């Protein structure tokens, strides 16, 4: 099975080579076989006796991340959709995309997507699922940006990526959390351990993470905004990714995890609420669009909302209807996208205001559109699959269980009304799409070319999909028994036997709801131009898009403002922040751990001479701050240095004293040499504020260091390792001067690299000076 999943990806590697011959033969002709093969592989599983199939291929077994492919009813439904629609889309693209386009890229992205999407629906391992999930986002990004010379394409691509990857990462968080809670990475095992998950205090968080992923991918309100902008992609892509498959990945995720969360009340509330709001809002907004693809995009959003809502209901009837509608939506919406693409291709525009009366020019296309839109609108005719699922949807809204909390009960009461409301607008935009394009008067003057019927090849794919619409409509039980039921069972957990009838009698409540929809819908369609003004009020100037744009703009400006606020380029600011942080946190720790200790018992006696030296050093050190002449400053520093050397003498460190003397002398000489070239010292002219801040920081830091030193000295738990050095200095090291023996023998490595440091410093100084003379010579 891994082969089937990865075959599109692997074969995609050859596409760039094949695409070199695109002028002789369209690359799509070769690519066509890939999805077809995959489809043929999966079709063999269809049948009433289907049992889930499982294959495992190791990837990172030690992390529990493996290609565990689990093909159950739900996966099979999706796999067939992905490969089936994939085949039709590639076929359609052969006629849609001109050979002058970079076809190689197009098909590589498309096949990459196909592999990824198959991976999502087949992976039982959450992390592999996530891997494929992000891969779909990436391929979608590339496909939307296919015509990246368009500003709108770039905008749409970025937007889709930001929103879907945001959701993807959130889902990743959810998966990680679930894997920590259950100790497994397999979805099936998580379902088996649903009680453990439900008992965890982090369950709501995990669910929230997952749903955020699902809602963004499936374009649920308010994350739906990326989908209309994704329409910048070539139409085959819109038909495939942004209507039939990728956007359903979110539905798939919710369906997959509904056995885990299904019993949790807030799962019902959030998912059905999100779904039903999306249904209503997007169908309402669809009527307002003027671009054919935009109408279809909003229509897709609203249909996704409807399915999401049903998954949220979680009843047997609802789940069956949801799964059934996933199939039905793919058929009619796929065909409608292709119709829109064909119209665009043959007339040069998708603007519905310029279109009209195309029935006479494109009768076949118009017929296909008629079936598609009527099915979408849910018109009660026995050969339209859309009607069946809409009917089942209404039925399920009525069959919600009572007896939950107040919020849930309220939802149960209002859902049927909202469902009808959303469906009315669905009806309106369906007819608006159909009549706006094919009915009414022709406006040839507004079109860039004279419309004519599309070539045969372009009609084949939508034709097959429409045939699907009709066949499913005529024989719903045929698809039901063979694979819809299996899919629904995988979601619901138990057996879902549902017979689908066309006729339930006049008294069936769902049918009455349908009648209301058709009746009111027809009225609204007829009077559309009269109530159009309502869009000035709602949404008016409100728009989620503006929120997105504002966030993106804010990210830019805020990050800039914040960063330039503290990244001033001033060393003083940097030092001040670094030093204060160190002081505050370190002192905080000292207080928190009771670190300060002082012990007077083990101290050397205080003598006058040492005190005097210390005093001189102190005065000189403070003096450096006030010195305003180069030479004076250097000499004062020299005093400190020699003072320290004196202390070394007093503290019985002759080697140190000698070294310090030599180093100090050379340093002072160097200082004088360099200072000769440096500008003169100026008086410090800091503001009082700065002086105070500087003083606080420096005194604070010095005091902190002193306190730590005193505490460290007062902590006397262990003897030092130095005794060993004294013992062995002569016997093993062969020298009397212990410090020297340590340096050259015991810690010889230090000394070697100390010399190295000096060497590097010398080279660096040399290059610094040389780089100057070079420049001078220029």
């Amino acid at each position, binding site marked *: 099975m891994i082969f089937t999943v990865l075959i599109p990806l692997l074969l995609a590697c050859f596409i760039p080579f094949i695409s070199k011959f695109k002028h002789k033969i369209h690359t799509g002709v070769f690519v066509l076989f890939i999805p077809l093969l995959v489809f043929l592989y999966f079709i063999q599983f269809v049948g009433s006796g289907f049992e889930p199939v499982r294959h495992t291929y190791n990837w*990172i*077994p*030690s*992390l529990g*991340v493996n290609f565990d492919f689990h093909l159950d009813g739900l996966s099979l439904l999706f796999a067939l959709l992905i490969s089936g629609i994939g085949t039709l889309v590639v076929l359609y693209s052969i006629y849609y995309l001109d050979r002058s386009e970079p076809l190689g890229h197009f098909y590589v992205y498309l096949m990459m997507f196909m592999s990824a999407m198959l991976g999502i629906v087949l992976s039982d391992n959450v992390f592999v699922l*996530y*891997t494929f999930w*992000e891969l779909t986002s990436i391929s979608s990004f590339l496909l939307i940006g296919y015509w990246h*010379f368009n500003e709108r394409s*770039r905008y749409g691509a*970025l937007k889709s*990526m930001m929103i879907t990857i945001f959701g993807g*990462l*959130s889902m990743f*968080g959810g998966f*990680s*959390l679930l894997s920590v809670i259950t100790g497994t990475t397999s979805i099936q095992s998580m379902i088996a351990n649903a009680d453990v998950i439900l008992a965890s205090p*982090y369950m709501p968080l995990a669910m929230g993470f997952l749903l955020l992923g699902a809602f963004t991918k499936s374009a649920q309100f308010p994350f739906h905004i990326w989908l209309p902008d994704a329409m910048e992609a070539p139409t085959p892509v819109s038909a495939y990714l942004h209507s039939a498959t990728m956007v359903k990945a979110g539905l798939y995720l919710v369906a997959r995890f509904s056995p885990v969360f299904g019993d949790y009340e807030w799962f019902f509330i959030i998912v059905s609420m999100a779904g039903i709001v999306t249904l209503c809002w997007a169908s309402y907004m669809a009527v307002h669009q003027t671009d054919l693809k935009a109408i279809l995009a909003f229509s897709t959003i609203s249909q996704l909302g409807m399915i999401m809502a049903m998954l949220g209901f979680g009843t047997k009837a609802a789940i069956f209807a949801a799964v059934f509608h996933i199939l039905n939506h793919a058929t009619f919406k796929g065909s409608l996208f292709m119709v829109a693409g064909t119209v665009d291709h043959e007339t040069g525009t998708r603007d519905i205001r310029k279109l009209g009366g195309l029935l006479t020019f494109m009768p076949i296309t118009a017929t296909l559109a008629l079936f598609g839109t009527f099915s979408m609108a849910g018109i009660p005719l026995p050969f339209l699959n859309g009607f069946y699922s809409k009917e089942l949807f209404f039925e399920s809204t009525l069959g919600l269980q009572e007896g939950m909390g107040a919020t849930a009960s309220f939802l149960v009461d209002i859902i049927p009304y909202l469902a009808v409301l959303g469906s009315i607008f669905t009806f309106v935009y369906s007819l608006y799409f159909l009549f706006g394009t094919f009915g009414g008067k022709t406006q040839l003057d507004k079109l860039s070319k004279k419309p004519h019927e599309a070539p045969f090849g372009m009609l084949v794919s939508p034709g097959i999909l429409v045939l699907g619409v009709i066949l499913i409509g005529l024989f719903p039980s045929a698809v039901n028994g063979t694979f819809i039921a299996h899919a629904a069972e995988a979601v619901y957990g138990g057996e879902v036997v549902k017979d689908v009838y066309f006729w339930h009698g006049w008294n069936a409540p769902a049918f009455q709801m349908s009648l209301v929809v058709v009746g009111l819908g027809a009225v609204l369609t007829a009077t559309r131009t009269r109530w159009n003004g309502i869009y000035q009020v709602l949404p008016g100037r409100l728009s989620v898009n503006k929120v997105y744009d504002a966030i993106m703009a804010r*990210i830019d400006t*805020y*990050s800039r403002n*914040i*960063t*330039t606020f503290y*990244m001033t380029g001033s*060393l003083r600011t*940097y*030092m001040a*922040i*670094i030093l204060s942080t*160190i002081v505050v*946190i*370190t002192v905080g*720790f000292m207080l928190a*751990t009771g*670190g300060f200790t002082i012990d007077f018992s083990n101290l050397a006696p205080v003598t006058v001479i040492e005190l005097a030296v210390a005093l001189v050093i102190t005065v000189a050190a403070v003096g450096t701050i006030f010195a305003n002449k180069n030479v004076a400053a250097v000499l004062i520093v020299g005093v400190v240095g020699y003072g320290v050397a004196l202390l070394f003498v007093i503290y019985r460190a002759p080697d140190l004293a000698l070294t310090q003397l030599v180093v100090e002398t050379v340093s002072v000489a160097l200082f004088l040499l360099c200072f000769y070239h440096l500008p003169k010292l100026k008086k410090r002219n800091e503001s009082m504020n700065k002086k105070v801040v500087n003083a606080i920081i420096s005194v604070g830091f010095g005091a902190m260091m002193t306190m*730590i*030193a005193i505490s*460290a000295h007062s*902590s006397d738990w262990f*003897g*030092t*390792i130095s005794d*060993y050095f004294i013992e*062995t200095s002569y016997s093993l090291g062969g020298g009397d001067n212990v410090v020297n023996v340590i340096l050259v*023998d015991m810690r*010889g*490595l*230090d000394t070697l*690299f*100390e010399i*190295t440091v000096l060497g*590097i*410093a010398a*080279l*660096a100084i040399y290059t*610094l000076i*040389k*780089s100057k003379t*070079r420049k001078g010579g220029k």
Partner: protein
Amino acid sequence: MSNLAVLPIIIPLIAGIILAFFPKRLTLVRTLSKIFIISNLVVASFIAWLVFNQGSIILETGDWAAPYGIIIVADQLSILLVLTTNIVAAACAFYAPHSLTDRKEKYYFYTFFFMLISGVSGAFLTGDIFNMFVFFEVLLMASYGLIVLGGDKVQLRESMKYVFINLFSSMLFVTAVGFLYGAVGTINMAQIAQRVQEVDQQGILTTVGILLFFVFAVKAALFPLYYWMPKSYAVPNPVISALFGALLTKVGIYAIIRVFSLIFVHKIELTHEVFIWIAGLSMVFGILGALSTNNIKLIIAYNIIPAIGFILMGIGVFNQDGISGSIYYLIHDMLIKASLFLLAGTIAYAAGTSDLRKFSGLIHYYPFLGWMLFISGFVLAGIPPFSGFIGKILLLRGALAAEEIAIVIIALLSSLLILYSIMKIFIRGFWGEKDESFQPKSIKGRSAPIVVLLAFSVFLGIGAEFIYPSIESISKYLLNPADYINAVMEG
């Protein structure tokens, strides 16, 4: 046998010295440095193979037994980092001749370069805290040499800040080592760990630990101590930026990992909790920095900060998944940062500017460069199946198991923004209309090192099964300091 452990320090040292003698004979210098770095890589691989198969190699220099002499400890963690260092270094050595002017190469670039490698390897390998200070100085001094290379106005200016801040932290380092010696009477890390454990990290010890943490945090560029970093890493030549970005900050974070898994592990409810906060703030402010600029080199430089945040987060949660994640992420970040800096340098060279507002549509001329950047973006953001992803799974699982939810959310959001910061370069710089008047420059020879680094990165993700078990064993080893202590003290 145990003498092997010092080779990754000594080979580059010798190489650096040799190359200092005839800096003007560029062909020879280039060839020799490639030979040296490759042989060092081979040696490091061999030692790594030994260590992973037969256990840590401990060298007591000058035959002075621990804890009295300086010891070199090639354990799994340090040798893995040395190996990665050499991979990065090799890529840089091959990239350097294409990017540096002859003049810069002649100013002892290769000597500084090898000294840097020597210092970095030494800092990873040493088992003595004062010796670590010395190696820090070696690598810093080499980095001073590199950062001023060429001596441009801007470079010198940023070098000043870089040198002052690092000098300050070096002095703080010496002092903190002194304090530690005052409290526990030793500077051998294993023995320090032993003694700190005996007194249960009481009294001043935690405070000294935090002081050391800050010393390393300045080098690691953690919030809020990273101010010196973005600019001074973005200004030098790309090959130098790559070395700095991949190695220098990582030495700092390595030291934190080492010291806070070996020595100061008895007050983790205090210390490591603070780390998690610092990690979160590093992610937030680092990524804000990356989003604030249109300078592509600066975008990459700022991206170092959140990455260090991710690594620190794993140390903060301090459980097995967390530590494994940190180490995985550390290795991943060394590779990807090097390749990103080289990429940014190449892009800036190809476009003639590093200002993102001034170029677009590069993909028409440099498709390969564009796709490398594209993949790097996903690698960096930890999008599967690339290397960052493996680290991220582990870090997330570790943090979730430790019930640190806030940091998980911050980490996820910053991953998104990290991706955005790189995709911004791709979308604005590479997408767009073809500019017919553009005169493409040849970038021959610059791609190969980047491809190699990226290949390692990708392998680190897809081939995680080959790597992860080793990382897991490192993490178990780090969580059980007794292993290290016993190996050193009784070995």
